Each structure stands twice: as C-alpha cells, then as structure tokens.
C-alpha cells in the first residue's frame, strides 16, 4: 500500500508519529540518521507519519531498488543493521565482497526473505560490521519484516491517509510534490464557491466526527446565511478512548488538512478559521503550527498569485483537556475563551456560532477528505463505499485483536473484514478457558455501543451501526474478547463519562454518577433484581434529557451491552 | 411528639388499632409477628437499627417511613459528610468526637454487645428494606399523619400530594 515506484533512490521512512514514538521511535529515527551519515548520501532517512500497524511499532519502511519492505518492533540498536541493509553502496560492496573473502564462509543462499529485490546475497553482512554476529543481526531483521501483501495492508484503500507515512510532515515541499494545495489553487482559479459546495454536496460526504451529517448541506447552510463575517472551525479535539485517526492526519499530513480547511473557508465565504486541537496532542499541535507557518510564508492562504480575492487566516487553538470540548457548542465557547460547556441547540453553529456569526465546524477527517473529492470528482468519490455512506473511513483498530493500528477502508466494508481479515481476529490465549475468542466490537467510544460477534457481517456504515445500537463515532474500534465481562466494560465507559461530564445539566452530572454506582453493583455481583429496571430507567432518563451529545450518549455502552449481553447483567444479581 | 398533636383523633385511633410495639407507648421489648402497620422513625445508623429494620420488614404488612430522618437520613445522616478519604463515616465520627475533641483521656469507647456498633454510613430506611409508604416532614404535621393513617384504617393506600402533605422539612 505505501510503496514507492521501483527504481527510486533508496530511503528509510521511520514513523515518528505518537504511536511509534511511545514505542521508542524517536530514538530509532535519530540512530538511523546517525548511521546513515556514513553512507555518503546514498541513503535518505526521514521521519514520516503513521505507517498503520501501530501495534508493531516502531515501524520503518525501506524503499529499495526493487520495492518497499516494512519492518516492525525495531530497536535503536538495530539502526546500523538496517542502514547497512538499505544502503545501495553497501550492496555493491557486498556483492564484490561476496565474490571475494567472504565467499567461502558464506553458503549459497536462496531468496532472502528480507530484501525486496532480486539481489540474493544482500542479506549477508557488510564488511567490517561491528556486530559480532552480522548474520544473526540480519536474520533478526528478516524476522521483523512485515508482509505488505497481508490483508492488513492489502485491503486498505488510503485516500485521507494516502500520503500519511510517505511524506515528511515537516516538509512543505514534499507535500507540494504530492499535489498539496493544487485543489485549493484550482478552486480559487476555476471554481466559484457555489461550484465547490456542489462538488461536496454531490460527493455525498458525511461528517466523520460521528453524527454523519451531510457535509455539503452544512456548508450550504453556512454559506447561505445573511451577509457578515463567518468562521471555519476544524474540530481536532479527538477524545474518544481508542480513537487516534485524526491524530494521524495532524501528525502525518498536516498540509492536506490546511488545504481542506482553506477550501471550506473559500466555499462558505469565511476569512478566519480555527483548528481546535486537544492539548494531549503536543506533537500534532507542533506539526500543525509549523505547517501553518510554512503555508503562510509561501502565501498559500491569500496573497499568492491568483488568490487576491481570497483572504484567509487560520489559528491553532489548544484545548485544555476536556472531552466535552469535542461537542461543537462547547468547543466554540472554549475558542471564545469561555468555560467549555455546551449550550442548547438551536441555534446551530451554522446559524450562530463564534461570536454569534455563522460558523462551519467540521471534523479533521471530513476536511482532509475535501481535497481528494475535488481531485477525483464527486462522482468518482461517491462510487466508493455505499450509496448512503460514500467514501472511505479511517478506523483505529485496537483491543484484543492481532493487528492493531490504523485502517482506512471503503464504508460498507463488513465489520468481519475489518476485524478478522484486516485485524487478523482476536488474540487467542491457549490455556485460558473460554478466553481469547472474539466477543464484541465496541465502536464509537464512550458514546457508542458493542456489536456482538454474531453480527460481524454487518456492513460498517452510519445506518447499519445505529440499527445495532452502536454508532460510527469518530472511528474507534475496540475489539473485546470473552475475557471481558460486559458490565465491567460498561462501567469503564461510564467512569469516563462521569469524569468528563461538564456538570452543566443534572442528568449527565448526577445521573452518570448514579449509573456508575449501579453498575458497580452488577460488576461486584451484589445487584438486586430491581436494579436491572432501575438501570434501564436511568439510562433512558439520561439519554432523553441530557443537554448535549455527551450526556445523551453516555448510557449507550450500557444499553447496547444490555441488549446483547443481558445474561451477564442478570448474573450480576446477588442470590437470595 | 407530633403524633401527640393528633389530639382527639388519638381516641378514634385507639378504638381501631392495637399498639403492639413502641419505644415509648408499650413495654414490649421484642417486635411481634403479624403486624399490620409499622411507622418507622429515624435513620438507620447502627447495627441494632439495622437488625430491627430487617425484623420489622419480615413481620409487618405495611411499613411506613415516618418523617425526614427515616426518609432522607436527615440530621443523623450528617455524620456521612465526615468521610475523609473513604466511605466509612463511623470511624471518622468517633475519632472526631472522642479523640480530637477530647479534653482528657482520649479514647474511643468499645463495648461489644452493650453499645451497638455504628454502621459505616447512616442510611434512609428504604436503602435498607423495602418501604410501602413515605411520610416526609420534620416532623410530619398532625394533619399529615392523619391524612396518612385514615385511608390505611380503611384498608387503602394514602395518596399524599401538595405542599401540606409532601413537603420535606
């Protein structure tokens, strides 16, 4: 999936997004850069965004003469080995050496599993290698090579993430080489705002933040408001536990997002915009700020030739760590410097948002899709996915699944394909009675629900998931195995809602606390028979009467597990 | 005391009911079997309260949670607020009263079997046993008590509504 055309210069792409960083990716990148310094510039080493299979990080992709190879679970100590393997100069030397001194000690080898070329003896050690056992080192690398033909990679359809992992996120030039800002320029030169909105409307794109509202309709609503200032806001406050889709865009391809925001601003007539990023994403914040400075410096937003009519400025705003600020009205309050609490809607932000002006709020992934739609054309984009849920969606696959990481697939892909084929199924645990088998998939985080294993053939689209009592949400998918009792899982999410409630309305502030206490009784097997009804009543009350989406959706993990796994709650009732 | 405000209704009542157990109106020490109606006053604060509440429930057809202390834990429940670092207000209350505020010979009294042990939390009656009728008020007025009792003398459940009948405090 992430492949350079054969024949390109040899390069190593080391993931230095948050996932791999947490596994030591930064030290690995430094070690690689240091080791590559001695190769005389024949080998490029660069840091890139997410390479998808986060569970095997730190990851490095090697683009060699014959194609691309991916390595996982790397340690900084292996940097030298990897550089020797990838360095074209060394290949030549080794070929020569292979005919010379080491030939005798080197048995003839068949196809080397490490190297993606026809060169059969590149797997042998470089001359003068410091390691005592160069062959062992190469064998280790061979064992860490990941098969790019496996479904995890082969079944992905990267559109939003098409350049994530390929380009250096800190390099505007690399982004430009791959076509960044080309669609913005085209819009400014060739398309009227109405035409841009028509393209988005016809593409059928729906909001990727969770609710699935038609993006084109939202843009029209903002654009058609009475004369006056307007704002564009990018919601990058990704806060669901188990969700890291937006982070990968922010960290891996920031210019794509900036382009999407600028196009949106042009389409709705906004001159000012904000990217609201949670403080827990320091790397994303740094990269977005740098990208923004680069784009400003090149005059990509206004001032550049042919863009005189389009003046747009953008600011990165950092949230203070409240989950509720992902709710649009709370987010707007926060941008305005007020307490991040939701307010009743209507009026919707499209009518009255920042400082009372019409405000377009879209999620990161929604906006990052915009340049793709304009490039492909709305018709081609709408042909991907399903008629009611067109396009691709990025999912963050985690939990009790073999392959954890980022997956971008067409909407409508069966959940089974995502979890079992792409994700490789649950982690079997031999010897654990009943443990390890796939039990359910939790989608949509603390606002979502569980889809039981026997509904895995459900296509993943907005309506199908809702019909099962779950929701698409922003794209987090947590795989649950039979070792996890469902009341425990529900309590986990309820505890999250308790601590993230803003406290403004009483059902969410006090109701979630009572729900968590009730769930404790089931988890600790001391519930009374009447508690089951109490639980259901209170869930309904919190769902129906809370002020914002956070409270309204807080009971979802309970209601969905009650729906599919009621027996587990019944077994939490204490005997007489 | 509020019960005594029922005045002449007490005579009507006495003709229709037999008081079989009361801390003040009878000498019987053991709660009898087969009781029709019990007005339970006060919150459940110690092991004796709890035991009696359970016994009342087992042996009584209709249990009335009588007054704010029984319904909300009210004043006795105030000790639930002193729970530094945990759910157990009993130890916190004892420490505060017998150790921190002691003038001399600070010690927590322990007399198993004599002084009933405090429960970790003072609880309203309905958090301990199922309750049939609630009669809030501190105290419930005589009119309110009468409005509660009269339907029950006729074998009906009272329906208490409006500020005169339902207001806490």
């Amino acid at each position, binding site marked *: 999936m992430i492949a350079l055309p054969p024949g390109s210069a040899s390069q190593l792409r080391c993931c230095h997004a948050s996932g791999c960083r947490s596994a030591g990716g930064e030290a690995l990148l430094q070690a690689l850069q240091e080791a590559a310094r001695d190769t005389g510039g024949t080998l490029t080493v660069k840091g890139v965004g997410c390479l998808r299979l986060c569970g095997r990080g730190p990851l490095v992709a090697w683009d060699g003469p014959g194609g691309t190879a991916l390595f996982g679970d790397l340690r900084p100590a292996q940097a030298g080995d990897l550089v020797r393997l990838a360095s074209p100069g060394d290949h030549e030397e080794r070929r020569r050496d292979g005919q010379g001194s080491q030939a005798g000690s080197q048995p003839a080898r068949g196809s080397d599993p490490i190297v993606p070329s026809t060169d059969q003896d590149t797997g042998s050690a470089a001359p003068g290698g410091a390691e005592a056992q160069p062959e062992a080192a190469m064998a280790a690398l061979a064992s860490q090579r990941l098969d790019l033909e496996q479904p995890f990679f082969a079944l992905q359809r990267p559109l939003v993430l098409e350049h994530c992992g390929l380009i250096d996120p800190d390099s505007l030039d690399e982004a430009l080489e791959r076509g960044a800002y080309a669609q913005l320029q085209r819009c400014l030169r060739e398309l009227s705002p109405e035409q841009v909105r028509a393209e988005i409307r016809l593409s059928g794109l729906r909001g990727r933040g969770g609710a699935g509202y038609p993006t084109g309709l939202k843009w029209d609503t903002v654009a058609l408001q009475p004369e006056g200032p307007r704002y564009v806001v990018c919601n990058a406050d990704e806060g669901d536990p188990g969700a890291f889709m937006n982070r990968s865009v922010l960290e891996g391809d920031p210019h794509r997002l900036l382009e999407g925001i600028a196009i949106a601003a042009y389409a709705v007539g906004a001159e000012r915009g904000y990217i609201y990023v949670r403080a827990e994403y320091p790397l994303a914040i740094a990269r977005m700020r740098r990208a923004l400075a680069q784009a400003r410096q090149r005059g990509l937003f206004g001032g550049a030739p042919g863009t005189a009519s389009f003046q747009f400025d953008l600011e990165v705003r950092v949230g203070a760590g*409240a989950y509720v600020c992902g709710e649009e009205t709370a987010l707007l309050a926060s941008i305005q410097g007020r307490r991040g609490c939701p307010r*009743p809607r209507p009026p919707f932000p499209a009518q009255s948002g920042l400082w009372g002006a019409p405000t377009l709020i879209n999620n990161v992934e929604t906006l990052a899709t915009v340049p793709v739609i304009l490039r492909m054309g709305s018709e081609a984009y709408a042909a991907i996915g399903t008629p009611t849920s067109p396009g691709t969606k990025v999912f963050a696959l985690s939990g009790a699944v073999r392959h954890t990481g980022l997956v971008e697939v067409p909407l409508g892909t069966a959940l089974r394909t995502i979890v079992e084929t792409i994700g490789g199924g649950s982690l079997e645990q031999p010897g654990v009675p009943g443990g390890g088998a796939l039990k359910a998939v939790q989608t949509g985080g603390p606002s979502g629900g569980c889809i039981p294993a026997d509904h895995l053939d459900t296509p993943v689209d907005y309506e199908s998931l809702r019909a099962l009592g779950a929701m698409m949400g922003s794209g987090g998918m947590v795989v649950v195995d039979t070792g996890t009792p469902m009341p425990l899982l529900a309590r986990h999410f309820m505890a999250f809602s*308790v601590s993230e409630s803003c406290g403004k309305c009483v059902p969410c502030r006090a109701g979630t606390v009572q729900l968590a206490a009730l769930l404790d009784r089931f988890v600790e097997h001391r519930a009374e028979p009447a508690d089951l009804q109490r639980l259901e009543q209170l869930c309904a009350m919190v769902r129906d009467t809370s002020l914002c989406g956070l409270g309204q959706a807080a009971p979802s993990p309970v209601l969905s597990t009650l729906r599919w796994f009621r027996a587990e709650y019944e077994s939490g009732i204490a005997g007489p | 005391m509020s019960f005594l405000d029922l005045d002449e209704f007490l005579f009507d009542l006495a003709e229709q009911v037999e008081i079989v157990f009361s801390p003040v109106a009878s000498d019987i020490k053991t709660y009898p079997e087969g009781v029709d109606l019990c007005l339970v006053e006060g919150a459940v604060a110690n092991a004796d309260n709890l035991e009696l509440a359970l016994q009342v429930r087992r042996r009584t057809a209709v249990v009335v949670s009588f007054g704010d202390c029984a319904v909300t834990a009210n004043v006795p429940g105030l000790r639930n607020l002193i729970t530094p670092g945990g759910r157990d207000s009993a130890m916190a209350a004892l420490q505060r009263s017998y150790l921190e505020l002691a003038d001399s010979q600070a010690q927590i009294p322990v007399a198993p079997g004599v002084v009933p042990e405090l429960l970790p939390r003072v609880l309203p009656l309905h958090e301990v046993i199922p309750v049939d009728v609630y009669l809030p008020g501190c105290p419930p007025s005589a009119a309110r008590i009468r409005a509660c009792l009269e339907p029950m003398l006729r074998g009906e459940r009272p329906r208490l509504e409006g500020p005169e009948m339902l207001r806490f405090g």
Partner: protein
Amino acid sequence: MSVITLSIDGQPVAVPAGSSLLQAVRAAGIRLPTLCHLDGLSPVGACRLCLVQVEGVSRLLPACASEASEGLQVQTDTPELREYRRMAVELFFAEGNHECAYCVANGDCELQDVAVTVGMDHSRFPYRWPNRSVDASHPLFSLDHNRCILCTRCVRVCDEIEAAHVWDVAERGAHCRIIAGLDQPWGEVDACTHCGKCVDVCPTGALFHKADGTAEKHPDRERAQHLRRARDQHEWQHR
C-alpha cells in the same frame, strides 16, 4: 408586533413572536417547574425540569431555551415527562446535602417546592453525601456549597445585571462548584459590590444573609426581572 399561535397540551395560545416556549406554556395557564430559569436572566437549559415534547421533534426541548414558533404542538405533561422530572429532582437531592429541616431556606426554597410539584416523597437514588464546604468569609453573606444545585443564577445575575462577574463555575462533573473571583474566599474578592443580588436569586439555601437562621431566608427572587425591565423598558416601579 407579530403574533404566533401554537398549541400547549391541546390548548391554543397566542404569544408575541420571539417568545420562549416557557412563556407560551405560561400563557396557556400551565405551570412548568423550573430551577435554573429565572425571568430577567438569560436561559441556560441546565436543570431539565421544563423539558417538553414537541410534535415532530425527536428530542425533548427545554421550554426556557427554545423559541415558540407558529403551529407547534407542545405537550408538557406526558407520563414520560412526569417521570423524568421526578428523577431529575431526585438526582438534585441525592447529589448534594439538602436536609430541609435545618436549612435557612426551609419553607421558601424552590428545590423544596419542586419536590412537592413532582410528587417526590423520597429519593430512589442513594444519597451521595458529598463532603462540601461553606464559605463564610464575606461580611454580609455566606455560601453553603452543600445546598448548591449549580443552577448558575448567581453567576448570571452577577454577570448580566450587576456586571461584576464575581461568580463562576470551577471543576467539572460531580466536582463542579461555584467559585468567587479566581477561586478565592468570597470576602477577598474586590469585585463583589455587596449588592446581594446573588442571594436574592438563589433558589435554595446555598446563598444567604448571615443573619438568617433556619427557615428565615425570604429572598426577593423577582429582583432580577425588575432590574431587567427597568433597564430594557424603563419601567422603574415594581409591579
């Protein structure tokens, strides 16, 4: 002034355009319980007691923060709404320490009244008994956090009418509390003008005059509305 007509519990009413649903409900002679709402202050829709069912709208709407519009069919008293209201009131009682018997506001408390309105004879939710404090640092008034229901009337009256903005909300979820100044003792906040409007609008016994003993608080809850009317419509006399 244009007029709109709508139906409240089957009863047709006419109200000036721009009225809230709550005003329309009142025009129909129906009393909806409210706690966070107070005439004269901006609506926040936080207590959820005035939720109503509007035909064709899937969500319940807070009457205080929703605009009345032509032809709406509004239900204020369905069994579901009644049950939810009672649950909300029980949640208020269970989350704080609202013993009425020894409260300054006993007998003149909107929370106490609302409990009667919804028919609450006990709380089905276990009491939380939070460990909260009392701020008695102000020379004239006190704030008892135990009695606070976070309606934010004090925050709004101080901001919108007195324009001192002494009060705000800190923390989140169950830890939310009203704070003075930059989370200082009230008595140390210079911005406080000692006007007492916050005490007047407080629905419970959370804010009170220091001189008040049990059941002695009798605030002027219409003060905010009178001041608002004086400013907006130049009506200076109390009506």
